[in-house]
């Protein structure tokens, strides 16, 4: 870890401006990911702007009947919020399936969205990694890639985004509200927040330097039953091999609408929109769920160690849809 200076931001505007003023400055909130990366010399900020005490820690109902979640709401508080538990249960399920109690107590909503991949080659400075050092190569592509992406990856990077929360938020069509160093605000659909790696895996989001997430807004929950299913190697404290957030709205034995978001398969939460469309009007049958699962993984490519993720994701989508449709 290299030496760094530290300041505690007094206001949202000042925080954004303080980071924007220095190319080597970074926001810090819970620090559950950034500090690990700094200790290993992977992140090397010279200046930290602490935004954890900004008044962005409220959860409020919006005029449209949704929920606005302050960027500094802790993961454990968000999971315990009565509105979240009642109206967005798959978000609460996803949060509680992630990390550990201690980490959830520290981790912020925005920090969770912006956490970086756990690819072990990214974490090891002796190994080539285009995300850490553009142009150095990808050690995972021919290496130990059991945890890696099967969708949306590139030859430059096959890392996955590790969040559970973001997968549920993707299924809920969350919107990310940011504030720029000049005080301008903008709204980014969650599906547009993270970039796929393509040739530049080091650029992970569409956020500009100094642009700060202020809140995440959930629209009113869509009709239907919500289910989050995380598949992992041990019962707790493990990243998803794959995870599925599904919402199924039924009309009798037919599906009126459905949503499917997957985690552990790509560099971002992966919405399976084609599969969602295919389900509209279909019977709540094994066939429909199985077909949807096939559609959700269309184009998936394994890299050896992670080939199993494709059938695993299909089976998990199928089962999670059936659960959301109250058929399993």
């Amino acid at each position, binding site marked *: 870890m290299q030496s760094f200076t530290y300041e505690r931001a007094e206001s949202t505007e000042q925080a954004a401006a303080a980071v924007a003023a220095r190319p080597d400055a970074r926001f810090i909130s819970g620090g559950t990911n950034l500090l690990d990366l700094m200790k290993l010399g992977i992140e090397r900020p010279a200046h930290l702007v602490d935004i954890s005490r900004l008044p962005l820690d409220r959860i409020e109902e919006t005029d449209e009947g949704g929920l606005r979640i302050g960027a500094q709401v802790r993961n454990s508080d968000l999971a315990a919020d009565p509105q979240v538990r009642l109206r967005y249960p798959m978000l609460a399920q996803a949060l509680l399936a992630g990390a550990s109690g201690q980490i959830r107590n520290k981790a912020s909503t925005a920090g969770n969205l912006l956490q970086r991949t756990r690819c072990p080659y990214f974490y090891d400075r002796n*190994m080539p990694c285009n995300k850490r050092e553009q142009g150095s190569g990808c050690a995972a592509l021919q290496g130990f890639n059991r945890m890696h992406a099967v969708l949306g990856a590139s030859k430059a990077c096959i890392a996955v985004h590790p969040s559970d929360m973001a997968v549920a938020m993707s299924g809920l069509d969350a919107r990310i509200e940011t504030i720029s160093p000049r005080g301008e605000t903008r709204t980014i659909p969650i599906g547009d927040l993270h970039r796929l790696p393509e040739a530049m895996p080091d650029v992970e989001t569409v956020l500009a330097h100094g642009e700060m997430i202020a809140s995440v807004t959930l629209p009113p929950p869509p009709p239907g039953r919500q289910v989050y299913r995380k598949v992992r190697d041990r019962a707790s404290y493990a990243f998803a*091999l794959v995870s599925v957030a599904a919402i199924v709205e039924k009309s009798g034995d037919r599906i009126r609408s459905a949503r499917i978001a997957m985690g552990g398969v790509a560099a971002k939460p992966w919405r399976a929109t084609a599969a969602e469309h295919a389900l509209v009007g279909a019977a709540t049958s094994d066939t429909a769920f199985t077909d949807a699962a096939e559609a959700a993984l269309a184009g998936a490519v394994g890299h050896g160690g992670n080939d*199993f993720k494709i059938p*695993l994701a299909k089976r998990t989508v*199928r089962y999670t849809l059936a659960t959301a449709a109250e058929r399993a």
Partner: protein
Amino acid sequence: MAKTMTSENRPSGPHSGAIGRPIDRIDGPLKVTGRATYAYENALEDMAYGCILGAAIAKGRIAEIDTAEAERTPGVLLVMTHRNAPAQPDFGPAVTPTVPEVFTRARPALNSRWVRYYDEPIALVVAETFEAARAAAGLIRVRYDAEPGRYDFRMRVAEAYAPKRTNAGLETDSVIGDFESAFAAAPVKIDTAYRTPFEHHNPMEPHATLAAWSGNELTIHTSAQTLVNFRAGVASTLGIPPERVRIVSPFIGGGFGCKLIVHADTILAALAAQALQRPVKIALTRQQMFANAGHRAEMIQQVRLGADNDGRLAGISHDVWSATSSFEEYCEQTAAFTRSLYAAPNRITRHRLVPLDINRGEWMRSPGEAPGMLAFECAMDELAERLSLDPIELRTRNEPAQDPERGVPFSTRNLVACMEEGARRFGWQRRDPTPGRTREGRKLIGYGMAAAIRPNYIGAATARVAIDRNGQVTAWLDMTDIGTGTYTILTQIAAESLGLPIASVKVKLGDSRFPRTAGSGGSWGAASAGSALYNACNALKQRILEAARSSEASPLHGANATEASFADGEVRVGQRSASLADLIAEIAPDGFEAEGSVAAGATTESYKAYSQHSYGAHFAEVEVDCDTSEIRMRRMLAVMAAGRILNAKTARSQILGGMAWGIGAALMEETVLDPRSGHFVNHDLAEYHVPVNGDIAEMEVVFLEEHDDKANPLGAKGLGELGVCGAGAAVANAVYNATGVRVREFPITLDKVLAALPLTAI
């Protein structure tokens, strides 16, 4: 029904004193209140902090190392590399002439520009703060001349060689009868290969040392299982007499075999402290522990079993190929237990090694049995299915009357009783022998069992014990408590032996100034140190009695009855008795002191005349998700027969820990060695999975009442590692019973089951 003891139901009769009682850990309050000082928590005035930089290649040499920027970093006191490190002996041959030298040989650090394994220390930065040292270490620039290395075990099995011995000095091979002919003629055969991966110990407390010189005397505060090894290792590396080295290690946050020998933290702290004339403190990071603190090597095991139609084994063959380091051989005795477990007239066990350019393997919990029983007891399960025999019945039919290879009687052997008691308690009869048929909702349910065996070792040990005029007893041993409860059981032994309450006994451990023991390892700690203390207490009682009889000031003066006892704080000779404290105050105001010892087990007549092992049976119930193949434990039961149980609570805790290790080995533990670079890829606790609380579910431990008078004066036998032995195989067999999918590559992660698991209709 077998007689059992649990923490609720302890034995009565001859052992009704302090020994065996499920008393709380003596050191528990210190630990839960943070007052037990671990190595890195020690602080000395003027102390400096070290940070180790490891090599970024696994084989080759350092062409250039630029430390200028690191040296300029504010707060940096010293940057040590092979260019300026003090002279140390060469490492020497891969195989030491004798077994004990493995533990005492010099282990030089930074003494060569050659890199032998990935992340081998190439520089040490010492600074006023840890942060400054770490930052500066990141500024050292290194250019290497890398060479191609050997990292792919499975591609190199053909290069295997036969070592001269295995760990613990055991025979590499054993051959009895004519296995090949017997196997060829057997009507029922199993010929199966299992693969077990690299594994790492990962004790919660990392390797850490605070070294301080006073003149030419060196004090090492560290986390060590066996102080005598550390002392010898430091002395031989630094080229100083062992008498000038003091090792202090009163509390240890887990060892599991990776703290039996010195590592780079200790050597480098000692060297840097000498160079700077200041105390220096160094810890390995969690990541560094993967390359620098030992591992269990990857193995392939071929098990061949030939049986008649009734399941009686005509032949047993257990072949092991294991990875080893090219520069220091370590051969885990993976097939050694097979020599004692089941009867069969024709037998082979063999160990072969495949050298790789990696660091040496080290003794990892239940060396031998942990990987060996994982494979062998699964193969027995395969044979039972082939024979349509219950797995317990198969094992019972092959119960030997005496040690099948040594031809000597067993000291005690209650394997069949363990299996029967376990079957009854676990509800084994509910198991459907046809796999894949038991389903609850979308979970497939399976039961599995396996036998457990673990040799009883005893190491040479001495204890000193003293009693003062207030009747307070102090015992000193250089024994360690690695979290197993050693302080507690030794206190119980002294208390019972001297007829005093627990509160009157203080046991002091973890200082090389105390009498020498074999330390903690190989499950020998309790029996070795405990027997030495038991003998020391007997010697102390003799001294007290002699003085009490001869001293005119004694209320027992002239008492000539031969019967004497120490109980309830009193000494009784014949019909006369006196308070122990009063007696000592009268006859010896300075108190009494005595020593007692035990010899190493392998040298004793009893060890030669009897096959000494502890035994057990493990039972497991798992559920496997029929959609995702996720495997989760439902419950486990261990029934153990390990001689006299010294503390029913700490013994149970040790078995529970072993069972958790079994779950880890069966289902999740694996370190991946990247065959391109020779580095362990998943080198942290987020990526190297051990079971967490959520993985454990319900666990029960039962001890059969046993007393092994051949083992040692206490009647106790090694216990700690028995919990691991076979536990993983019980889990693996349960996964097979649940799914009908036999995974022979450990760990059984869900991807290995998934492909063979048919879809279940929704």
